[in-house]
């Protein structure tokens, strides 16, 4: 996707095809000859892992959809039918459910890596924003998928989350009725969630293409945050990046398999094995772990409308990161102060995740408010000011100098 291809097929059929549709050249320039910085560390392998996970989710999802029934009276039973009577249905379903969690784990690592090394900075703003859009799409897809099981937690999560929109002044209730397709979460809600849950992954796949395209226009960032200057600074994608990505992908699969085969229900909530019952509210309604930090932000604010604004704001603010961070230096390696604030941000995010599982009372509320304040302050106060006041360390002259210098 970058520049002219040097691809010269020797096979005559491929030569014939290349003249008419240069798809071989596209693949060759994108995934074989594409120059990658030679100093990429393992944190850079999560893009490949995410593509792999998207593939896993789509393939298992399509087969699950063949056996699933999106109806309030049959959905839970059809899922149990998959678990019991479909050949290897339990495997497909556990892969899909735990795959979603692994997908989010990988995307969080990917995002924190981007933040740490300043990968969002000029000229990669569009690449970063496409990533934020992908993340939002993932959240919507994951949420709707969780509802499809139609257990107690599915039903009540759907009720709580859709009810957030009722906080919008004036039109809130009308919007919620419109989202539900009725006056409560019911069959129309389940049907549209199913339809969208099937649609959105392909939207994600489309945006992934744009994301990769934008990546291949600007080239990858790297741990030094300085652009490659000569051929000495880069290595071809294949075999170097391919084999490195491949190795970590297999390691990631070990973690994935650990969950799927040994603790498949560890990340789920036991209440979701109780069929949905609108007449019984569970003792606690908690979202899946990957939404917990945002849930904690929502609950830390006493006003419902402001809480919802904070919830969406906490994700939306990510899109403005390229302009909120005023520092000219990309990588945290050369930004001693930023590095400390960054790790505080990671602690705040994980802390909020933990608080999302706790009841909103006593010390938990106070902690959640402190972390929520820091979450926003990091973007709105710390990052703009750091660019002005931080004294950064000297940058190496080139990537190869930083690699060979470290070795010598």
């Amino acid at each position, binding site marked *: 996707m970058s520049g002219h291809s040097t691809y010269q097929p020797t096979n005559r059929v491929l030569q014939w095809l290349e003249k008419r549709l240069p798809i071989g050249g596209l693949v060759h320039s994108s995934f074989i000859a594409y120059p990658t910085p030679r100093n990429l560390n393992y944190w850079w392998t999560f893009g490949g892992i995410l593509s792999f996970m998207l593939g896993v989710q789509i393939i298992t999802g399509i087969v699950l959809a063949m056996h699933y029934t999106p109806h309030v009276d049959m959905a839970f039973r059809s899922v149990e039918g998959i678990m019991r009577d479909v050949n290897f249905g339990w495997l497909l379903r556990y892969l899909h459910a735990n795959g979603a969690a692994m997908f989010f784990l990988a995307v969080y690592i990917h995002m924190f890596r981007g933040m740490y090394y300043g990968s969002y900075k000029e000229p990669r703003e569009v690449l970063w924003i496409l990533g934020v859009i992908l993340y939002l799409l993932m959240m919507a897809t994951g949420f709707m998928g969780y509802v499809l099981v139609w257990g107690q937690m599915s039903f009540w999560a759907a009720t709580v989350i859709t009810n957030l929109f009722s906080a919008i002044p004036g039109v809130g209730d009308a919007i919620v009725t419109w989202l539900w397709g009725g006056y409560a979460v019911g069959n129309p809600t389940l049907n549209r969630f199913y339809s969208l849950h099937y649609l959105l992954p392909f939207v994600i796949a489309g945006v992934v293409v744009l994301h990769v395209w934008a990546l291949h226009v600007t080239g990858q960032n790297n741990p030094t945050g300085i652009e490659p200057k000569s051929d000495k600074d880069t290595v071809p994608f294949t075999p170097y990046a391919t084999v490195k990505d491949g190795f970590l992908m297999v390691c990631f699969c070990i973690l994935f398999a650990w969950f799927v085969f040994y603790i498949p229900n560890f990340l789920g909530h036991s209440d979701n094995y109780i069929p949905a019952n609108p007449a019984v509210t569970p003792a606690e309604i908690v979202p899946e772990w990957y939404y917990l930090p945002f849930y904690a932000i929502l609950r830390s604010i006493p006003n419902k409308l402001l809480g919802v604004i904070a919830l969406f704001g906490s994700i939306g603010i990510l899109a403005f990161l390229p302009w909120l961070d005023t520092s000219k230096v990309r990588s945290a390696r050369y930004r001693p102060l930023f590095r400390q604030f960054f790790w505080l941000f990671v602690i705040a995010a994980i802390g909020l995740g933990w608080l999302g599982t706790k009841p909103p009372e006593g010390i*938990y509320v106070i902690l959640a408010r402190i972390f929520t304040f820091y979450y926003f302050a990091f973007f709105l106060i710390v990052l703009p000011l750091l660019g002005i006041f931080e004294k950064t360390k000297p940058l190496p002259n080139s990537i190869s100098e930083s690699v060979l210098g470290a070795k010598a």
Partner: protein
Amino acid sequence: MKSKRLIFALVLAGSLAAMALPASAQLTEQVPPPRLKWSFAGPFGKYDEAQLQRGFKIYKEVCANCHSMDMVSFRNLADPGGPGFSEAQAEAVAAEYKIKDLDDLGNPIERAGRPADHFPAPFANELAAKAANGGTAPPDMSTLAKARSYSSGFPWFVFDMFTQYQEQGPDYIAALVSGFKDQPPKGFTLPEGAHYTEYFPGHAIAMPPPLQPGQVTYDDGSPQTVEQYSKDVAAFLMWAAEPHLDARKRIGFQVMIFLLVFAGLMYFTKKKVWSAVH
């Protein structure tokens, strides 16, 4: 003076405790059940056929009087990784049940069960189940062992990830059915028609103590105690909720071996490829 200090210390300790345990104090008051030894725990876990058969006997003679289990079929009794019935035995079990059906003319009939039938529910519908049980319908048992749990709390849940502890459900069920007390502790007011059990959140449960010593006859010489009964029925319910556990863990081990070897090969390939660059 001394008593004032004591009161102050007590208040301080109390408020600290209240701060540390707001969740457990307010929400449900759930006592964590003891962790029992299960044959199906861990990476090489497998159901114990004899135990599942004993558990099935308890389900059939005791639980099934009130609880449905309608996602499980008679044929499942003969599935691999289950109680190990032969197909003929499963068929014989099915034949003991009466199943509501229609004849060729559309008239409602009752016929003998077949292996493909699901276990019939003891009540015609949920309302009937509620009415017969003091207003609370006994939960369906098909997924019960996965639908019940308790929180280990931080940091234990992190360790659970590594020790593969997934037996919260059976631990809880075994503790619940064996944890009934004739008299609630002093100061505890039991609501009308409720029964006191140690491990139920809030302690007051509608279900009367279901198991008495010697109530179910075991043919294999296992002790006929409430403790043994509750373990056996909890194991059986785990199988009912997760019938492919044996296959999952067996395949999981093969997958792990494959992935570890694959990762090793990838590691050395990567090292070789990159050796020229580093």
